[in-house]
């Protein structure tokens, strides 16, 4: 039965062709819609696995189910306080509604350029309404700076306060962007400010300011050193004077006390008979003063010679 055998082969082949067109595989990373003669008819499939469609008539259009990247270009934007900064942000997004996505932007390339418009525009809007400090800082945490006191660090005080901060600005951009994105079947998951920097001319000014700030601190250190030296020098002179005068005072006290004691000792003993004392002391003095070269004139009526003239009184 050659014909029957050939017919069976053809049938098997046909079944294979039809099955191949009726079943399709959706990967975990994919979501699909069906096209009928090229026209999207929806029937979104987000579940991975084996699926069925009408063979030959319907085609599968595949889209990413994963979170996708969007990386913006650097944009020069003035802040509310009129400072020009370069802003570079990035976003993560996903295809939320594949049918709408296909109908409005067709593919990811179309989506990227649409996202450029949406996110860049919203970012510009929000940053021009914010002060620079809001874009840079997240909170009002107290910051410390080097060396303007003994411990080497000091609180920075004269700094603008942040009302919203970087995190909230990013959140605002996300919120605003997500008001527009859904009409392209897109959901933006997150927007982050990646780079924020001064434009070149401002950067030079900032460097100049930083340099002057540093030199100010350096000068402070130097003058602190000199001040400390003056203090130590002063202390040295003071201590020197104090030590010397203290010693002088003590010495004088000791001497005075000793002299006084000597006087009182003398007075107590010699006071018994002042006349006798002056007699003794005079004799003593004679011994010491009347020496080799002295000339002494004695009258004959002196005590010593009174017997020279008369034998009796």
């Amino acid at each position, binding site marked *: 039965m050659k014909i029957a055998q050939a017919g069976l082969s053809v049938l098997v082949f046909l079944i294979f062709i039809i099955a191949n067109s009726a079943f399709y*595989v959706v990967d*975990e990373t994919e979501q699909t819609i069906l096209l009928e003669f090229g026209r999207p008819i929806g029937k979104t499939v987000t579940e991975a696995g084996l699926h069925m469609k009408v063979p030959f008539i319907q085609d599968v259009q595949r889209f990413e189910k994963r979170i996708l990247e969007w990386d913006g270009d650097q944009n020069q934007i003035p802040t509310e306080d009129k400072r020009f900064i370069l802003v570079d942000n990035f976003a*993560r997004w996903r295809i939320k509604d594949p049918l709408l996505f296909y109908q409005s932007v067709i593919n990811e390339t179309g989506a990227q350029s649409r996202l450029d418009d949406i996110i860049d525009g919203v970012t510009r809007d929000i940053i021009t309404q914010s002060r620079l400090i809001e874009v840079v800082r997240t909170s009002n945490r107290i910051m410390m700076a080097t060396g303007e006191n003994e411990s080497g*660090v000091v609180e920075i005080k004269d700094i603008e306060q942040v009302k919203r901060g970087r995190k909230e600005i990013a959140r605002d951009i996300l919120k605003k962007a997500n008001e527009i994105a859904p009409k392209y079947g897109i959901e933006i998951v997150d927007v982050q400010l990646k780079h924020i920097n001064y434009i070149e001319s401002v950067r*030079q000014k900032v460097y100049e300011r930083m340099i002057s700030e540093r030199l100010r601190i350096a000068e402070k250190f130097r003058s602190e050193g000199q001040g400390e030296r003056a203090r130590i020098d002063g202390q040295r002179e003071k201590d020197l004077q104090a030590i010397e005068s203290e010693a002088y005072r003590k010495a004088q006290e*000791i001497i005075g*006390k000793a002299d006084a*004691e000597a006087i009182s*000792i003398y007075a107590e003993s010699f006071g018994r008979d002042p006349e006798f004392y002056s007699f003794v002391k005079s004799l003593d003095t004679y011994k010491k003063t009347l020496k080799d070269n002295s000339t002494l*004139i004695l009258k004959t009526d002196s005590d010593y010679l009174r017997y020279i003239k008369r034998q009796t009184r």
Partner: protein
Amino acid sequence: MAQSGRPGQFNPGDMEIPKIDKKFVYPVVGVILIIWLLLSSVYTIDADKVGVIQRFGRYTTTTGSGIHLKIPFGIEKVTKVSIKNNYKQEFGFRTQKAGVRTQYKTGNYLAESAMLTGDLNTATVEWIVQFQIKDPIKYLFKVRRIESTIRNVCEAAMRAIVGDKSVDEVITIERELISTEVAALMQTLLDEYETGIDVITVNLQDVNPPKAVQDAFNAVNEAEQEKERIINDAQKAYNKVIPLSRGQALKKISQAEGYAINRVNRAKGEATKFMAIYKEYTKAKEVTRRRMYLETMLEILPNIKDLYIIDEDQEGILPLLQLQKGKDSK
């Protein structure tokens, strides 16, 4: 077999194709089929990896290391993911060749490393991030191009943290803290995106003020050193003088004390001596007095050069004396 057709083009004698017996064809084809079947249904997973299995694209299971079976013909697909490997990303610089002396690519990565600090200054920060895949399923199925996501997230996180610190804190005071804060913030964001990535460490490498400002930063360090030096010098001058003068002061006091002892002792001695003499004197006042007087005279007079004795009635003695003096000097 194919020798029929045009005999002019083929010379049957040149091509001797070995006759294959028809009964061998089926077993050979069968063996090839079996080998193919085995190859597409057996797979091995290395020790540091896991295999993620998808049947008709749908995730079914994860297998560990070893030899496993799967349904062949593309029905089940295995993706091997390394879960023990540490991946590294560099920011602000690139290693060209790691080694004892690591070489770095020269190039400008300032766009990655330059950032604004909370006091609106700028700093350049270079750092690395190490991460692992902790959840292979999320890693494969949730986010496309994870590397670029990690890089972007890391740059944003670093700037968010640095943006809330002063330039001094970034460069010196809180340098250590930044790594942990960035790692934590990164992890939060990566978890939000369901990347399945585990941040192991964030390591700060060079953290510097911008090049144009570095000299000024160094000047601060120099000034700090100079301050120390000046203070030390002053302290030295102090130490040179004060202990010496303390010693000298003690010396003066001791000298005064010595004087005092001397003075009092002398006084006491003299007083005692006087009292002793006085005690005896009171016993026979007149005689003692006279004796003392005469004894003194006895002692003095032999030493006297010229002794004149004048009678009280005599007048005009002085000219005589003068005369005597003039004679002596001649």
